[in-house]
């Protein structure tokens, strides 16, 4: 169902774009192809790693590390990890999804995904150059706190 919607949307917009401007549509497809080429190997490596993860890490191991049993520790670990790393969503979402299916808690995964997009420790020096240190510190700090809050709420609603 979801797959059909995405394909339908992409095809309709593509035809619409083609109708409006051929050269632009061609550029869009070339951009998509280049993006695919840059992502292909990392994504393939991630998928293979997920294969290992699903075969070796049993739900009980994952559950102890970042599952319901892990409590605060799991959420904190996931949030810190999400804050520090700089990962493409194309890699992060399948990985997070596979952990979720293997027994990770919604809380931990939500903390990871939310901090991943909102908090950037690695990009903080760059952010400070544009907006100043105070702005950067408070934006990231507040985002981190709210991310934990979002994770806790999501964990209590989705089980």
């Amino acid at each position, binding site marked *: 169902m979801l797959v059909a919607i995405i394909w339908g949307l992409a095809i309709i917009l593509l035809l619409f774009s083609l109708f409006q401007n051929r050269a632009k549509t061609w550029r869009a497809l070339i951009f998509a192809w280049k993006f695919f080429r840059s992502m292909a190997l990392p994504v393939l490596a991630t998928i293979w790693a997920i294969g290992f993860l699903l075969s070796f890490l049993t739900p009980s191991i994952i559950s102890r590390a970042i599952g319901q049993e892990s409590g605060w520790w799991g959420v904190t670990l996931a949030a810190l990890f999400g804050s520090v790393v700089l990962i493409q969503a194309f890699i992060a979402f399948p990985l997070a999804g596979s952990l979720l299916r293997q027994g990770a808690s919604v809380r931990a995964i*939500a903390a990871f995904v939310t901090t991943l997009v909102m908090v950037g420790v690695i990009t903080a020096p760059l952010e400070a150059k544009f907006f100043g240190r105070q702005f950067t510190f408070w934006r990231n700090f507040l985002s981190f706190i709210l991310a934990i809050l979002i994770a806790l709420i999501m964990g209590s609603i989705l089980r």
Partner: protein
Amino acid sequence: MKKFFSARNILILLALTNILVYFFAPAKALLILSNARTYLLEMLSVMPPILVLIGLFQVWVPRQTVERAMGSKSGLKGIMMAILVGTAAMGPLYAAFPLGVSLLEKGASLFNVAVFLCVWASVKIPMIFFEIKFLGPDFAGLRLALTLPSIILISFLLKTILKRRSFYEKT
């Protein structure tokens, strides 16, 4: 160090490990491959249209459009446009930094720029489909529904803190 951990080398390492596992536990090695294949098929079922959407957004909504959407003034309508366009424009958070600065220069408030940055970082239309695919509609929907009010709160607190301490200076 960075060269060693390239995607290609990791792939080679994974392949060698997989072969090694095959010698000790053939069933396990095949299980790894079949698990990976399931995910590969799931990925391939959504990746082409999402890439096409990203390409189309990239061409039709380039970064300059975000600025132009603001117009020369930065009223509520302007910033709403910038935020809306920001969900369609592609690029990581750091791509939005120069845009945020130029919004400030056009007179947008600190609150509005903070909202713009946070929305840019956390809401990307093509990626929402991707999140639904791998984390489920409940997860993606709830995260989005909780993130938007959080962004308003973050930006409000940010504005209050920086104003009270009169810390904010343009760098």
